[in-house]
C-alpha cells in the first residue's frame, strides 16, 4: 500500500494492525477484540481524513500511483474491447488509447488518456501526455463512431498535452483546436469523465461533450498548481496555495456549472476499491447515455453548443473606457 503524506495517521494504524495480527498468529493471546477495535479506528480515521480533503490533497489523490486508469475501467465496464491504433498520418500515440467496445449491450467508441502502471510503462505512456497524434487518433475514432452511430465515451487523465519539439512541429495546438471544433458538431452522444488529472488543453482536447463528469477526487484546471505557482508566485513552493486559488476540485467545478455532475469515489479514493469505482462510473455513464439517446442529433448538438456558450462570468458596465494614466 502506498500512503500519501496526509494519510500518515492511517499508515501508523495499519502498522499496529500488522503487529497485533502477528501476536495473534503466535496463538498465545486472543486478539480478535483488539483487531476489531483497530479496524473500526482505521475506518473512522479514513472517513475523517477523506471528508476534509483540501484542493492540493485531491490533486495528490488524482495522481496516486495505484489509481485505476482508462484501460482498467474499460476492462471492468465493457464486455468486449478491440483497441484501435494510430492516427493514419504519423504514428500511434501511447498516451491516448481508444477503440470499439461493447458497453451495456451496445457498441460504443471509448477513448481515454492512459498512464503507465509501473516505471517502465509510465515512460511508454509518456506519463499520459499526448502528442498531436493522440488527439488525431481520438478524432479519427470519434468520426468512426459518428459514421456508425456509436456513442462516444472519453476518460480524461492527463498532466497536460506534451510540450515537446515534435509536438509543436506537428501542430499540437491545431490538433486540440480541431477536436474541439469537431466534437462540438459530432452527431452522436459524447460523455466525458475526468478520472484523474484534468490539466488544461490536454484534457479538454478530448473533453467537449454533452455530459461532463468528474470523479470526486480529481481536478480540472487551466494549469497545474505547480506551473501556476511558478508563474504567479515566481516559485515552485506555492502549489498548495495555487491549488486552493484555482478552485479546481469537482465540488467547485460543479458549483460553477462547468461540469454536469460528480461521481462519488469509495472512501479512501478510487484506488481503495477499484472495482466498486468502475461500477459507479459505469452506472453514471449508462444513465447519461440513456438520456442523451432519447434526443435527436440536431437537438443534442444545439444543447451542447448552448451549454458551452453559457460558460463564462462577467459584469456589464456603462461603456466608458477608463482613462489611461500618465
Amino acid at each position, binding site marked *: 500500500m502506498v500512503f500519501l503524506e496526509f494519510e500518515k495517521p492511517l499508515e501508523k494504524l495499519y502498522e499496529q494492525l500488522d503487529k497485533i495480527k502477528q501476536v495473534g498468529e503466535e496463538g498465545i493471546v486472543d486478539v480478535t477484540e483488539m483487531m476489531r477495535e483497530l479496524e473500526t479506528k482505521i475506518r473512522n480515521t479514513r472517513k475523517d481524513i477523506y471528508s476534509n480533503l483540501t484542493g492540493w490533497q485531491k490533486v495528490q489523490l488524482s495522481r496516486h500511483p495505484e489509481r485505476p486508469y482508462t484501460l482498467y475501467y474499460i476492462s471492468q465496464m465493457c464486455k468486449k474491447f478491440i483497441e484501435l491504433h494510430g492516427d493514419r498520418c504519423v504514428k500511434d500515440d501511447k498516451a491516448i488509447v481508444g477503440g470499439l467496445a461493447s458497453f451495456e449491450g451496445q457498441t460504443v467508441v471509448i477513448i481515454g488518456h492512459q498512464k503507465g502502471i509501473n516505471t517502465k510503462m509510465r515512460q511508454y505512456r509518456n506519463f499520459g501526455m499526448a502528442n498531436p497524434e493522440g488527439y488525431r487518433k481520438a478524432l479519427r475514432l470519434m468520426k468512426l463512431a459518428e459514421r456508425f452511430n456509436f456513442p462516444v465515451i472519453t476518460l480524461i487523465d492527463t498532466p497536460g*498535452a*506534451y*510540450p*515537446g*519539439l515534435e*509536438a*509543436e*512541429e*506537428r*501542430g*499540437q*495546438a*491545431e490538433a*486540440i*483546436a*480541431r477536436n*474541439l*471544433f469537431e466534437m*462540438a*458538431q459530432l452527431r452522436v452522444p459524447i460523455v466525458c469523465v475526468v478520472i484523474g488529472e484534468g490539466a*488544461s*488543453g490536454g484534457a*479538454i*482536447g478530448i*473533453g*467537449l461533450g454533452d455530459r461532463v463528469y468528474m470523479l470526486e477526487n480529481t481536478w*480540472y*484546471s*487551466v*494549469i497545474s498548481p505547480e506551473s501556476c505557482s511558478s*508563474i*504567479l*508566485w515566481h516559485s515552485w513552493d*506555492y502549489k498548495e*496555495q*495555487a491549488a486552493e*486559488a*484555482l*478552485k479546481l476540485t469537482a465540488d467547485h*467545478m460543479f458549483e*460553477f456549472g*462547468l461540469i454536469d455532475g460528480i461521481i462519488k469515489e469509495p472512501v479512501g479514493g478510487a484506488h481503495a476499491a477499484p472495482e466498486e469505482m468502475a461500477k459507479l462510473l459505469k452506472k453514471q455513464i449508462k444513465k447519461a447515455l440513456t438520456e442523451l439517446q432519447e434526443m435527436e442529433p440536431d437537438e443534442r448538438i444545439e444543447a*451542447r*453548443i448552448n451549454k*458551452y*456558450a453559457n*460558460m*463564462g*462570468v*462577467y*459584469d*456589464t*458596465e*456603462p*461603456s466608458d*473606457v*477608463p*482613462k*489611461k*494614466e500618465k
Partner: protein
Amino acid sequence: MGWFKRLKEGIQTATRNKKEAPEGLWYKCKECKETSTMKELRENFFKCPHCGHHVRIGSHDYFDLIFDGDQYEELFTDLRSKDILGFKDLKPYPERLQEAMKKSGLTDAIAVARGKVNKKNLVIAAMDFNFIGGSMGSVVGQKIAMAIDYCLDTRSPLLIISKTGGARMMESAFSLMQMAKTSAKLTQLAKARIPYFSLLTDPTTGGVTASFAMLGDINFSEPAALIGFAGPRVIKETIKKDLPEGFQTSEFLLEHGFLDFITDRKDLRETLSDLLNLYDL
C-alpha cells in the same frame, strides 16, 4: 493611395487609439537597435523603418490600419471581467484588473469592431497583449461569441487577430472552457458558410492557439511572430535541449503546414480586401 493620408490623420487624432505603440518621440527597435521617430514608425505601418520588424500594436491600431477611412464602430464595450473565484496570488485579481485598465486604457484583452474594407463589411475581434498578457478569460470568450452571433445576424465575415500568452490563470477553469466555447461557436459560422479569417500575430500561444486561432478558414500571420502551443521556455525545460533557430516562428508554422500564408503588415488591408472579393462577399 489613401494609406499615407490615413496614417497621418491617425497621428493627429486621439492618442487613445495608439495604446500599444511605444510612447514618446523616438522608437528604438528591439531587433536592430536602430532608432526612428514615432512619425516614421507610424507611417511605416508600425514596422521598423530599418529592418521591417513588426512592432506589437493594439486592437485599435489594427482597426485604424484595416477599416476604410479609420471608421469603425466598437461593439460590446460594456463587458468587464469579474473575479468569481476570489483569486489571489501575490495580488488579488480585481487589483490586477484595475491596474491593467489604468495602464492600458482598455477594458479587457480584446476589442470587437465593425467597419468596411474597400466597402465590404467586416467584423474584427482584435486582442490586446498589454492587458494581462492578452490572456483569455470569460470576457474574451464572450466577446468572441457575441461577435460570432453578430456575424450570423448580419452575414458579415469575421477576422480575429490573436495576440496572447494564452489562458487567464486567474479565471482557472472558466478560462479553459472559453476554448470549448469559442470553438463550438465557430462551428455555427462554418455551418452558415460565413468565412472566418484568423490572423496570428506576435505572440500567439497556449489555449488561444489551441482553439479559435488555429480554426480559421484561412490561417495567416505577420512575419516572425511567435506562434505555438507550449511556450519556448517550457519546451526547453522539458526536452533539456536548445531549440533550433526559428522554432515556433510564423515561417516555421508555414513550413510545417499550419498557416496559409504570411503577410507583411503594409499589405494586410489589401490582402483582406482581396480575400473578401474572392469570397464574393
